[in-house]
């Protein structure tokens, strides 16, 4: 067991190293980070060159990389060229907004997915199963911007026009004195995210419940005379939930990055929008910092999920 964890951690370190090299090269050369100064008439070419020298942009590439990596390991992600603020501070500001939005959306998604998946599996091939399957195929094919814009059109624009109570379209800043406004701002983005994500999860729940329901121990439980309800909730669901927990565990780190499209449509001040805004400005320390945080979280949680799984499910023993 310990050798397994050790081997996985070693592999993970190697993966992380590749990620940092890859991201560094891609972001460092994604445009001129000093382009914002180009339009400034007070800044001469010499000044610009001096600034470049001072920021270390003229150093050999490997020096730049190792400088960045050395500081990043100590928790210093560098400074934004545009905002002139430490990247870690900028991320810390946005992270709570993203987490609140994404976790709420995830809870709503999983709740609905469980409900739909259970109905679908228990009443296999019934009218409701077919309806839910159709819904999930459509949901699976809908781009998030469509559900976001559609909800916006109906509940914000049209409702306002019709004189009905309408919902705000995002742009919330956490204001302790007015949590109601904050929650109101969250309704549309959470619905848009949940609507699209529920589809995939509910298919998954359906498949894993059907798989468990066909096993012998379920038949034994039925033969003992237990009611369907008890069999389903006490016996089947527990085992069916295992793969679902894994999937959710693997998805959680991806939530950190927020949803770029959803956050920009609803002007939600989260990490996704931070990433998008600074990627456009080629402000590579910010972009790189966000990529690093997400990928570290992904790599760590993948190992944790794998290890936890083996503890929870005795059928799997690592070799």
């Amino acid at each position, binding site marked *: 067991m310990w050798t397994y964890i050790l081997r996985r951690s070693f*592999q993970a370190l*190697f*993966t*992380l190293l*590749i*990620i940092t090299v*890859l*991201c560094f090269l*891609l*972001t460092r*050369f*994604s*445009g001129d980070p000093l382009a914002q100064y180009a339009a400034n008439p007070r800044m001469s070419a010499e000044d610009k060159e001096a600034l470049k020298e001072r920021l270390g942009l003229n150093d050999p590439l490997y020096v730049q990389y190792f400088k960045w990596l050395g500081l990043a390991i100590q928790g210093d992600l560098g400074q934004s060229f545009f905002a002139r603020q430490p990247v870690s501070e900028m991320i810390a500001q946005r992270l709570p907004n993203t987490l609140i939005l994404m976790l709420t959306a995830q809870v709503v998604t999983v709740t609905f997915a469980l409900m739909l998946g259970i109905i679908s599996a228990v009443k296999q091939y019934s009218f409701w199963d077919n309806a839910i399957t159709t819904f999930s*195929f*459509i949901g*699976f*094919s*809908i*781009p998030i*911007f*469509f559900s976001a*814009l559609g909800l*916006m*059109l109906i509940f914000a*624009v049209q409702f306002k026009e019709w004189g009905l109570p309408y919902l705000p379209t995002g742009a919330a800043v956490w204001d302790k004195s007015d949590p109601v406004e904050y929650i109101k701002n969250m309704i549309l983005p959470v619905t848009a995210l949940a609507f699209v994500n529920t589809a995939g999860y509910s298919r998954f729940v359906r*498949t894993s419940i*059907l*798989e468990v329901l*066909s096993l012998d121990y379920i038949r034994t439980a039925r033969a003992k005379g237990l009611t369907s309800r008890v069999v389903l909730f006490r016996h089947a669901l527990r085992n069916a939930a295992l793969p679902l927990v894994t999937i959710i565990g693997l998805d959680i780190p*991806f939530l950190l*990055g927020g949803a*770029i*499209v959803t956050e*920009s*449509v609803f002007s939600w001040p989260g990490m996704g929008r931070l*990433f*998008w805004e600074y*990627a456009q400005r*080629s402000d590579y320390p910010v*972009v790189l910092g*966000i*990529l690093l945080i*997400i*990928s570290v979280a*992904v*790599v760590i949680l*993948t190992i944790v999920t794998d290890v936890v799984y083996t503890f929870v499910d005795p059928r799997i023993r690592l070799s």
Partner: protein
Amino acid sequence: MASDIASFDSQSVVREGVTGNILTPSQLIWRRFRKHRMALVGVVGFTLLMLFILIGSFIITDERSNAVDLQARLSAPSDKYIMGTDSTGRDVFARIIHGGQISLFVGITAVTISVTLGTLVGGLAGFFGGWVDSVLMRITEAMLSIPQLFLLIVLGKFIGKDIETVTILGRQFSGSVIIVICVIGFTSWMGLSRIVRANVLSLKEMDYVAVSKSLGSSQLRTFFKHLIPNTMGVIIVASTLGLAGAILSEAYVSFLGLGIQPPTASWGNMLTSAQSFVQQGSWWMWVFPSTFIILTILCVNLIGDGLRDAFDPRSNRHL
């Protein structure tokens, strides 16, 4: 061994065949695919969409889809403009036909790149094992640890947008078409490479591979003649589902404004400014292109689902 195969075949014919004729594997697959009603709906839908785009482009010329009519800008659907006009007075209907060509072209070529790359990386990793496997799989894991949209944005910025216009088949395209194809192709091969690797790992332990080796075939021949053709089922299914993903990716990238640049139309870039038009109420500008995107993805997903069940009959036992 030959008789083993023969008896296995005849058994499967007894199980699956109704007429008693000996069916080849591809006939069996076709038979199973035909039984999948939703997949046939997908085929019909996709054919209709193709015909619409193909016939439409003969009736409505490319010039008309780019013609600017400033007097008629932002006009609602009418007799003259069936689907209205966009912010510079271009005919939305004509742009949907010609944009559809681009979106499908981008989707198909991007999938070709990603499938080739994924098959090669996964196949080589599984075939050679050892350090080749370790390195290739760490790179795959590294790229899988970054959410795809983040990777698309970073790679899109990295390649840049300053490529001259190109002429393909007598039509002028913005150079961004090629960039978008590469960006999508290079960011979506990882999932397939993992599946192909697992497949090749189990296949290369099989007797027929040992026979082929002992008969003196080169590694290259074993790889391309025996291992890859036997993973074809997985590859075909992955390419179909990948096509849906690629069309969706094009839409996301273009929605953010990083994708295909006007005047070349694509379903994605017709949505670029959709966000601001939601507030103004010009719903036709984004509802029509989105609907076409959703319908295409839905049909392709349905076909992919049918193919998956047809290629792997075990997978639908519990579905």
